[in-house]
Each structure stands twice: as structure tokens, then as C-alpha cells.
């Protein structure tokens, strides 16, 4: 099954994506990741105002049979969370790059984004898995 790879974002090795918008970044998980999880039933989002450190586990996404950690792709402070996921966690399945976004953070060090993979590199990466 071919995963969709959004061209406008950068990817971590643990399948999170980052879309930079000014000094802030929107974070989500990729189509590949949501596919592996199957039906998502619950998303535990970081609270607004909390800090996340790049590489550290910061959120959890649950399906019926698994609970996968989301690792912070960048360091920053959470400025907004996708409250729609409380009632409709399946948005992460249906629209992982759009309506299924997780949080928005104020970037502590914007250059971290450069260490992430671009769409082409990520496409090659998931082909090897």
C-alpha cells in the first residue's frame, strides 16, 4: 500500500512531520504512521504552554491494539492543540497532513528543521522499511 507523502513538510525518522509557518511549526504524524496504527481511538496531546524537547516522547496515539509514542521532531513550546481530535481522533487516519494535525509549537531553534528529511528523502526511507 503506497503511503501519501506530503511535499510541503519535513519528516523525522519516527514518522512525525513538521510544517513551518513563520516562527512556529505545526506537527503531525505521516500517512505511513497512521496506516500502521489502523483505527485510531484516542490521542493524548501535550498541554498548551508545555515544552517539548527534540527526540523525547511527548504524546501518545492509541488504536485498539497498540499505543504508539509520538517523539518531538523539534524543540519548542506548545501554543495550540487540535481540540477536534478529542471527539474525532479518526481525523488522524483520514487526513493526517491536514485536519489530523496534532499541535502547534513556537520553535526554540528553527535550524533543527534542517536536520529533518524532505519529502523525497522520506519517500526513499519508508521504501526501505
Amino acid at each position, binding site marked *: 500500500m503506497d503511503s501519501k507523502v506530503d511535499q510541503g513538510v519535513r519528516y523525522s525518522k519516527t514518522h512525525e512531520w513538521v510544517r513551518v509557518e513563520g516562527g512556529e511549526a505545526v506537527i503531525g504524524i505521516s500517512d505511513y504512521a497512521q496506516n500502521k496504527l489502523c483505527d485510531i481511538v484516542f490521542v493524548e496531546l501535550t498541554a498548551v504552554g508545555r515544552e517539548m524537547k527534540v527526540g523525547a516522547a511527548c504524546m501518545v496515539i492509541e488504536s*485498539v491494539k497498540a499505543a504508539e509514542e509520538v517523539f518531538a521532531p523539534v524543540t519548542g513550546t506548545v501554543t495550540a492543540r487540535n481540540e477536534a481530535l478529542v471527539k474525532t*481522533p*479518526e481525523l488522524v487516519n483520514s487526513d493526517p497532513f491536514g485536519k489530523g494535525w496534532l499541535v502547534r509549537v513556537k520553535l526554540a531553534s528553527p535550524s533543527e528543521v534542517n536536520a529533518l528529511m524532505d519529502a523525497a528523502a522520506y519517500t526513499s526511507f519508508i521504501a526501505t522499511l
Partner: protein
Amino acid sequence: MPEPLLFEKSRPGRAGVSIPACDVPQTPVPATLRRAALDLPEVSEVDVVRHYLRLAHLNYCVDEGLYPLGSCTMKYNPKVNEAAARLPGFARLHPLQDPSTAQGAMRLLFELQGMISEIGGFDAVSLQPSAGAHGELTGILIMRAWHASRGDARRTRILVPDSAHGTNPASTTMAGLEVVEIPSDARGNVDLMHLRAQLDERTAGLMLTNPNTLGLFDENLLAITHLVHEAGGLVYGDGANFNAILGVAKPGLMGIDVMHFNLHKTFSTPHGGGGPGSGAVGVVKALADFLPGPVVSHAGKDAGAGYAWSTPGRSVGRVKSFHGNFGVLVRAYTYIRMLGPDGLREVAENAVLNANYLQARLKDTYPVPHGDRTCMHEFVAQGRIAGAPDVRALDVSKRLIDYGFHPPTNYFPLIVHEALMIEPTETENRETLDRFVEAMQSIAREAAAEPALLHDAPHASPVRRLDEVKAARELKLTAEKAAGR
């Protein structure tokens, strides 16, 4: 037809049981303490009986047929056990009655402590833990306490094989220790190279299930326990698979320092739909002082005192109120007394033969990753069928229900893809085993010819496949209240 909830059958004014009139002068209950209303079902006794009988009809059970559930040991539950546990002189005892008025019960516990010690090769036993996981927590706390008693504060890690049951790492975390995973090697044994690499002064111990969840007796068992001891650690034995070596080997003599036994697996007490169980813990002499208390002690034949409660000097503390699941312990005691030493050994012999028989007859139809080895009381096959790439373990399992069998354990151990862990136990006869093989072979043929039969299975059960996603998203965890209540 779905059976309504008791709440839906409730009608105001109906009652099941007659209560005696009050024979003493009444003391008013202050209004400030009273509850306003109690919203429980109002039904008659005949409603209660019919309700639960109809619910019973929706259940499969071991009294009906085979449960080839790996690592669960769903053997037959002897009815004599039920008679024993219900004897009024057992069932009506209060746990806190003076020991002088409970010498029969205490003697049973004392003898059971001794019998489990003897069977496992241990020096002391606590009958207090209520379940295997409870025993695991107890055992790891004992290991931790032992290291602390020697002034060694560095030992914070427990090594756990990747084939381990989820309770192993969960118990380790509850005890405040860190889990370090050890992979298995190509033959299904604990990988010695990786084990050696992880053994150091931070190792509190190793948790070992042997035979493991692949159904294999570790070919390097003595080397493993020796290595752990040499590194200053202890070995915990998870006894879930003890049915394979009952009377065949004594773990306590092979380097296991502390081990739990699942009495509701190996020792025939009924599973009850999820308990009660009992997770008795056996230890070698060095750890006896750390067991949870109280245990039953005896001052000796000549002392007048008889059986008494005593708490080991450096006990990790009680893990439960009172003494343990006595009703379950009576059943295990009855079983051991009926079987005797030869009967216990025959259990393992027949359990292992039955499993090898199934492995031999199924491994050409379903891949068995370690099928070249002799399995113990269980083996792991894969729900993968030639010519049916879309069929998975889940589908095979659900289709087995239509053939009148409970499915095997699914998707465990995690180290085998599409795992089907099959354990027949010794209480199944050859015809049942043959019918199971025929069903599995038939399902394999259906998988290739008519996969929809599997994907949509079960067809013949009281309900079809249930929507677990809906259950997790909507979380309806209690019955809805009727309007106005």
C-alpha cells in the same frame, strides 16, 4: 437473540430474596447519613435464574470443549475440587478466627506450602499472592529486598527476554526497577551473547519463563542461571508454563531462586472467566526471610502449639489482605493429593506428547518457526497459509469458532508474526486432537479457495465480529439510566 440487561428487565416492586423480619428494637438511622435512592435492578428470583442461564448459553467453556490457548493451560477442572472448597468447615471460616479454631485449614495450607516446595525444588512458599502477576510483583520485590539487605543499591535492572508475557515488564516497573530486553536466538533460546553483554553490577536479576512462550525448553538453562548468579543477580521463574515439567524437573534445583506458580493453570483450579486464581511463590533458602507474611508455621510434632501464623523476619510486606485465595488453594491441594507423585509426572508427559502430536500433524499446513525442535506443552505456529496471502492469524482463529473450538492464543509471543500459540493440555483425548487438526486443515483449504469464509468469521457464534474500535471511541462502560432516574 441478545439477552437484555438486568436493568432493562427491572420492574418496580419486584424482589428476589425474602429477608427475615427484625428481631431487635430498632435504632433510627440518622437522615443525614442516609442515601436518597439506590438504582439497582428489581427482579424476581426466576428472572435472575433465567437471565444468568441465558447468558451462560452464550459462553464457550472448558466443560464444553477444547481451549488450545498457549500458556493458559486450560485443562479440565475436576468437580471434586468444587465439593472440597464448598465444605462448610472451609467455606464458612473467618480469616481472623483464633488459630486454635482453624487448625484443619491451617494444616491444609501448611501441607500445601510443603507440597509446592517439594514439587518446585524450593525451600519456602507463600500462598498469599492472588494471581501470577501478583506473584511476579512479589518475587521482584523479594529480589530487590535481598539486594538491599546486602547493601547493594546499584542493582536496578531486570533482564526480560523478548518472548516474555506482558506482565513481566509491567511487574518490574511496579517494583521500581528498569526493564532491559534480551533477544532470543535462532533456535528460540535466550541469546547468550546478548545476555552476557547485559549482565553487570546493575543487574538485579533475570525473569525467565521456562519452557518459554515459544513452547521450548531453553537448551542453555543451567548456563543461563549460572551466568546470572556469577554476575551477582538472581533468577526469577515465571511458572505459567510449569505444566510441561511438572514432576519432570524442579526449577529450584536448576538455578531458579524465586518462582510463581499459577494454580489456576497447572493445578486445575477453574479459570472463572478471568479469576480468581492464585500465584503461590516459592523461594530458595536465602530468600525465605523475605516472603510476604503471614505464612503457616508449625512448631514441631512435640510442641503443643500446632499450626500458627508467622511473618518472615525481613518480609517485603503483605501483598493482600488476610492469607491468600484459600478457596482456590483448597482446590489445588485436592488435585495434588489425588494425583500423587506419579500422577503429577504423567500430567507433564501427556501434555508434552499431546502438543508434539499436534505440532507434527500441523506443521506441514501452518509454518512452525521452531518445528525442528521438540516442543514442550505448547508450540507456536503462524497464521500464514500458502496460496492465501490476505489471510491472517485473526481470520484462522475466528473461523475455528465455527468448527466448535476456542481459538489458540493470538499474536503472542510478539517475536513471531501472526502467532498462533497452541497448548492442548493433557486432559484432551486423541479424538479431540484429531478433530482439531482436521478443522485447522479444512480452514487452510478454505483460506485458499474461499477466503471470505474466514474474513467474515465467525458465522455460527451468538454474535458476529464485534466492533472494538467503536467500543474504544464511544466508551459506554455502564448501563444507561432510564429516563427520570
